[in-house]
């Protein structure tokens, strides 16, 4: 049991031993796929905003440039990135998804912290959480981040209902991210499906 991410409340635990063969290429594949989807979907959304003469179009281009810069940083570096940079990307990602899915409500309550995270990993988690809830009758996501003792606790909750999907491929992605976080920064990621949706919780140790 010591290899399990032992969170009593969490319904699903990640057995690190299960993923002995998982190498960095597997996660890199998820990151590249997310970057690829993000970039081309973002351009498509901007194009739509221009054609439909939405007032947000110009701001989207500026924000897109910031995100593109971050993506290039992530590609160049194998190091962990400042959490604040990841947050900027997350916020743009949210605004882009809200353009694509107008009913999507996102509550953002994330405290700043000088921690470092593997690049794009919080983005992967958020993208999967949004993906799960856009088919739900109520599209809601809540993101919180708090310093708690020696950890930074980052949570994403979405509004998938009881009948909602708990997609195998999404779970597989989450497992890859969980392992990657464990290896890279000793963070522990768990998730559970509860009656109100799916909750992810990451305990990220603060840098010494």
């Amino acid at each position: 049991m010591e290899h399990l991410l032992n969170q009593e409340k969490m319904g699903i635990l990640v057995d690190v031993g299960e993923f002995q063969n998982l190498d960095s290429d597997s996660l890199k594949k998820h990151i590249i796929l997310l970057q690829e989807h993000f970039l081309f979907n973002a351009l498509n959304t901007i194009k739509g905003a221009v054609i439909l003469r939405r007032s947000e179009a110009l701001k989207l281009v500026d924000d897109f440039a910031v995100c593109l810069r971050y993506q290039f940083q992530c590609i160049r570096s194998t190091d962990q990135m400042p959490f604040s940079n990841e947050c900027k990307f997350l916020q743009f990602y949210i605004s882009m998804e809200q353009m694509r899915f107008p009913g999507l409500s996102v509550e953002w309550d994330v405290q700043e912290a000088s921690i470092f995270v593997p690049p794009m990993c919080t983005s992967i988690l958020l993208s999967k959480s949004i993906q799960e809830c856009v088919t739900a009758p109520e599209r809601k996501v809540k993101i919180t981040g708090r310093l708690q003792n020696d950890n930074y606790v980052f949570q994403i909750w979405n509004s998938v209902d009881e009948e909602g999907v708990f997609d195998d491929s999404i779970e597989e992605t989450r497992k890859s991210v969980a392992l990657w976080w464990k290896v890279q920064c000793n963070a522990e990621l768990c998730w559970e499906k509860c009656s109100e949706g799916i909750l992810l919780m990451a305990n990220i140790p603060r840098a010494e």
Partner: protein
Amino acid sequence: MYGIHQVNNGNQVYFHGERVMVVDDSELNLEMLNLVLRDFGLAPDIFQNGSLALSHFFMENEFYYQYILIDLNMHGVNGYELIRQIRTSTRKDGKSIPIFVMTADITETNHKAFEEYNINGHIDKPVNFHILLQEFKGELEWEKKR
């Protein structure tokens, strides 16, 4: 000024009310496609999810639609599942209706799947409308020659 007239800058009407089923889970994309396709003379019916599109397709008469345009990476019933159900149906137009897909994914594996699902063409995102309409037009001319 930006807008639809920059997409169809010659105000050319290539089509004469051919019906297109458009399926995409992004409302913004649907709104954009609806506007542009209409401007080019097509008659789009837009659907925000795969299951709605599927039930509508089977409800309509055979050969009601001349084209289908699907976003591959949809939530719920995804593009491939939708195409599989259309292609394997017993409807007369199930195997022959031209199906085009839109995707932000550029991996090679997709191209193999396009053959497997008998997909007539794919449009990379962001959607280049001139390429899309040339693809539609090509199918139309090929159909006429047949």
